[in-house]
Structures are given as C-alpha cells and as structure tokens.
C-alpha cells in the first residue's frame, strides 16, 4: 500500500474508509439520539425547556403501573420460555425419532409476524366464538367465567401465553445449537466415572451451556422489555390498563396524545433500565468466560 501513498496519506486512509459508516451512523443513530434528548426536555405547546417531563414521571401512576406490568410480564415469560425451551432442546438433542420434523414445526410460530400472531390469538381467546372456550366447552367445562381478554388477571395470563408460544422456539434454537457444540469427550469421561444422568446434566451440560443460555436470556430480556405489537393487537393494554406495558404507554403518549416530549422522557428511562440489565448479563457472561 505504501508504494502508492505517502506517509501522510496513509494515516488519513483509515478515516476515509470508515467515513461512510460514520456518516450513516451519525444521521441514523447519533443525531436522532441527541435530538431525542432535546425533545425529552421540551414541555407544553410552546415546547419550552424544563425538567417537567422527568418530574412528571414520578407522580404518574400509569407510568409506574406500566413499568410494573413490563417487568412482571418479562420475568414470567422469560422463566417459562427458558424452562420450556431448555426441555425441548434437551429432548430434541437426543436420538429421538422424527426429531427433524419437530424441529421444523417448532420454528413456525417464530416465523409469523407478531401482528398476525396477535390477530390469531385474539380470535382464539374470544369468549363466545373462540376456539379455546369452544374446545373446553366440548369437553364439558363451564366457560362462562373464562373471559380471556376481559378480566385483568386472565388478560395478563393471555399475553404471557402468546409470547411464550411465539418465542420459546427462539430460546430452544439457541440452546440446541449450544448443546450440539458441546464435545462428546466429557460425557464419555463422566460415563466411565459412573456419573448419574442428573450429575452429568448438572456438572457438564449446564456449565458448558452457560454462554448459550446467557445469550438467549439476554436477547429475550431486551425483546420482552420493549414488547409492543402482540399486546397492542390482543388487548390494546386493557381491560383498564391491566396489560399496558411501557412501550404501549409510550406509543399512546406520543402518537395519540401528541406529547412527544413526555414520551421520549419515558423512552430514556426504559433505555437506561434495559442498559443496566443488559450490562449485568454481559458482565456475568465475561466472568464465566474468564473462569
């Protein structure tokens, strides 16, 4: 390279080469980020600068309940997705007949757009004409009180069921890949040493699978904290605000009430919380790698 370029030019070359990327990053991420910071400090119709949006957060009951809904939803869905995903991965990693068919079928929910999933489940949850109550009724169950999307507790359960149905395959896929990457030797050694299946799982599979588990949990946590589309279609946050997550509340504030300042202020809180949680995961992951 130095055959064609002078020393000075050579020093400049890397900057030139990354310039297009920087330009794209600047226009699409960095500038909007700073613009959003500015917006989050603007209040009122005249958009004057104040801390109003952030102080309002502390006295806004809807914000706190949305935050609580988000975290309860995320932790319950994450636990279920992880447990079911891990079981499925262990099951389909063994020498099961027809496992390729199962693997392919398991991926179907993940391939559907969340909006479509929302519409399908909304129809199935319908308490009068829906498939779920219809099936239960045909088995002789009394479904009069099973108003899935209309009572707060059942509605919350419903949105968890739908998320678990759609995203367990994703956890399963990552864990399966992790399982298949574990070499055979430790298992053979364990077998010779006479270890029980549970001991093998606890002392070999789980530790070696940890990186895959952490990645699956990290990706799912970030997605769960900003969940929007399926809930929007299923309940629109109702009944009351029983299933209103923080993303839904932000959306409502920005696009229905036209209050972009307050909405961006809330987005920042969500961004900071997501960052803290992700950082904890990543730290944990790095510790594991070092150990």
């Amino acid at each position, binding site marked *: 390279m130095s055959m064609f370029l002078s020393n000075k030019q050579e020093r400049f070359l890397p900057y030139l080469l990354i310039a297009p990327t920087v330009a794209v990053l600047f226009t699409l991420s960095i500038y909007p980020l700073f613009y959003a910071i500015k917006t989050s400090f603007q209040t009122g119709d005249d958009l004057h600068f104040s801390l109003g949006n952030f102080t309002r957060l502390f006295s806004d009951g809807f914000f706190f309940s949305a935050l609580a809904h988000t975290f309860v939803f995320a932790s319950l869905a994450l636990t279920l997705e992880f447990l079911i995903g891990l079981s499925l991965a262990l099951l389909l990693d063994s020498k099961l007949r027809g496992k390729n068919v199962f693997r392919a079928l398991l991926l179907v929910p993940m391939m559907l757009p969340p909006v479509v999933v929302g519409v399908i489940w909304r129809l199935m949850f319908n*308490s009068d004409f829906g498939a779920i109550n219809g099936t239960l009724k045909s088995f002789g169950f009394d479904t009069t009180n099973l108003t899935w999307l*209309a009572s707060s507790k059942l509605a919350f359960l419903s949105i968890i069921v739908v998320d678990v149905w759609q995203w367990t395959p994703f956890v399963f896929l990552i864990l399966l890949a992790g399982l298949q990457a574990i070499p055979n030797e430790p298992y053979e050694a364990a077998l010779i040493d006479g270890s029980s299946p549970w001991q093998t799982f606890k002392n070999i599979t789980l530790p070696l699978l940890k990186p895959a588990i952490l990645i699956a949990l990290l990706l799912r946590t970030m997605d769960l904290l900003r969940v929007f589309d399926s809930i929007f279609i299923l309940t629109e946050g109702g*009944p009351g605000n029983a299933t209103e997550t923080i993303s839904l509340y932000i959306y409502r504030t920005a696009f229905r009430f036209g*209050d972009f300042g307050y909405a961006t202020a809330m987005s920042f809180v969500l961004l900071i919380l997501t960052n803290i949680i992700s950082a904890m995961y990543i730290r944990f992951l790095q510790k594991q790698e070092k150990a």
Partner: protein
Amino acid sequence: MSKFLSVLLILSLVFLSACNRGGSGEKVITIAVVSGVEGDALTQAAKDYEAQTGIKIKIAQFPYQSLFEKELIDLQSKTGAYDLVMMDDPWFPKFASLSNALTELTPLYQKKGLQGHDEDFVKTSLALCRHPYESGKLFALPYVGNSQLFFYRKDIFEKYNLKSPETWDDVLSAAKTISEKETMKGYVMRAASGNSAVADFMPIFWAYGAEMFDANGNPTINSGEGIAALKMMLELGKYSPSGYASFGADEVSNHLLQGTAAMSINWPAWISAFSDASKSKVIGKMEFTTMPGAKNQGKAEIGNWLIAIPQSAQNKDAAFDFLLWATDKQQMKLSATRGNPPTRTSLFKDEELLKKNPAYPVQLKSLETSRPRPRTPQWNEIENVFGIYLSKANSGELSAEDAMNKANEEVKKIVERGK
C-alpha cells in the same frame, strides 16, 4: 472531515426534497383519507373529479389510528404533505388549537365571491367545524354525518309486549325480561378501554344529567349523577354477554347480527349489514330509534367526518374547489349511496335515498339532537383515562364510586397540565 460530512448531508437533503416535489408544474392535490367506507367514498369522488376537471388528485389512505398520527405530525411540523385532510370530529379541537395549522374557510369563500357555507348543513354537524365550538371561525366542512342510534329487536319486543325503549329504565327492564325468557342476552355493549367504553357510556351519562366539566373547565365526572349513570351501565352489564369489558364495535355488531343479543347502542354504518344475508341472521327484525333518556332527554354522541385544509397546503385554492365540490348536494348524495350518512338536511329527506335508507328520518332526528364529545384539545388523553376506569368498573375491578373518583382525579391532572 466535517466539511465532507456537511456536503454529504446537504446533498442528501437536496436529493430528498427533489423527490418530494412532483417535478413538473402540474397541479396535484393530495388528500389524506381514512380506510373504510368513509374514505372509500371520498376516494371515488376524487376519481370522478379527476375525470371531469383533469386536475390530478393523489389519495393517501391510512387506517384510523395512523391517519391521526400522520395528520398530527403534518399539522405540527407544517410539512405541506397534504392539501386536504379528512378527520374524525374529536380530533378537530386538537388540530384547530395548534398554532396556524388549519386554514380558515370564510376568506376562501369570499375570494370566490361567496357569502359562506350554505344553510343546508345540519347545525350540529357544522358546529363541530368551528373553533371554538359552534361560535368560532369555520375551519372545516362536515362530510359524513354519523350519530349513534339505539338498535333493538322488533320481533322480540313484540313477543313480550315491550314498548320501544324511551328511558334507560325501560332498556334495563326489557333486557332483564329478554335475558330471562330467551337464550339470547338482553343487551350488548362494548367496554374495552379507550374510545369503546366512553362511546357506549356517554349517552347514559348525559341522560342522567351528568357533565364531564363545569363552566370553568374543571372535571365533574364523579358527581352523584355521574355515579348513578355508571351504576346503570353496570346493571346493563349483567344482561350483556360475558367478556363485554373487552368488546369493541365488531364484537357488539357480531352479537346483534348472530341474534345472540337484543339491544345495543351502535352507529348507522352497521345498518346495511343487518339486511345482508351473508352476515345477518336477523334480516328485517332490527329496529333503529333515537337514544333513550332518563332525567334528561336522550342524546346520541355525534361522530362526523370533517374535511379541512392545512395551512401548509401547497394548493389551497384547488383544494378548496374540490372541498366545495365534494360537499355539495349532488356529490354528497353519491356518497350517501355509497353508504355514508350525509350532513345535509335536504338529503335526509331525499325520496330516492329514503327508499334505500328507511332509517334516515330517525338518523336526522338523532343527529339534530346529538351532542359532541367535550371540545378540548386534550380529548384523546382524557378519553383514554376515562375509558380505563370505565373498563375497570365493568370488569369488576373497581366499584362505580371508586372508578368515577379516580377518573375525575386523573382527568383533573390532565386538565391542569394543559393550563
């Protein structure tokens, strides 16, 4: 480096704005319309107009919610993307109170040597187009004249010798009788949070003499009358299909069409579905009447579609020409044959239209006596909060008193913030 960046930015901006303009000097009117029957009628009219005059019209059609978002952003940041915007009437106070967002129509009339709008428009519809309500300047014209009606099963009412419901007590006792004696539910309503619950509650709220705000704009939702009205709604809920706390308009209409419920509040747009054999199991059995009352005479909620010209529109004069043409008697009659209730008194009495729409006299009566949702730019926010607490009361989470007290408290916060 920064020079390079700024050149790149400027170039991309120039390129983008060049894409935005039509290029040639040809006049193009862009209209933002809603998807569904209301927007389809205007789209059809635009095509006819194009064929007649040679003026090109571009239609931007969006679903209800995103239409509001697009229009709000266009009007707030004055992008000039649309020459005409179609809007649901509760959005109007918000749009009209933005500074310099909508074009006042009277000067445009005067420019054409006209006095102003003609007197054929229904008064309650035209009042929606003024800011402030009824008394202010004219910023829009009404295009579709919806107002709620009360739907009930004529055959069932005759079977049990029930008279056409005039008060909410009549409705309740009829609902009770029907629920007890038939396999169907006596009543069906929608109480999903947001617009649904509020729309089905307002006629009861008003009938009981409750008001959302006092003369100074302070919320009075939790008055004795208001709580009594919510108690009536909860009573009616006992005779409504289970799960109604999550119902929207579709579920309500489905119950009526399937013959699984006997009464409801609904909008005229659904009337035609009842005589469509592919959808309806109750052909010829549905009757439509004006809203029942209580302490006060019954009043329906009005829900009109209005058309306005943004201040940032690029072809105001051409847009105004089209607006006048589309809302004149002849065109609105065509729109009525496409399924939209008109906003002109003469069309509700038109012989031809009456043959196809036997409910028109009732619709006109309902429209003329209808009430708008409170005219405040914060209505979306207020409706959302009010809807949440109504929905909570209907799903059994809160008592009527608690729901109304909390709704009042939250609405108060919103109002204070707007001051």
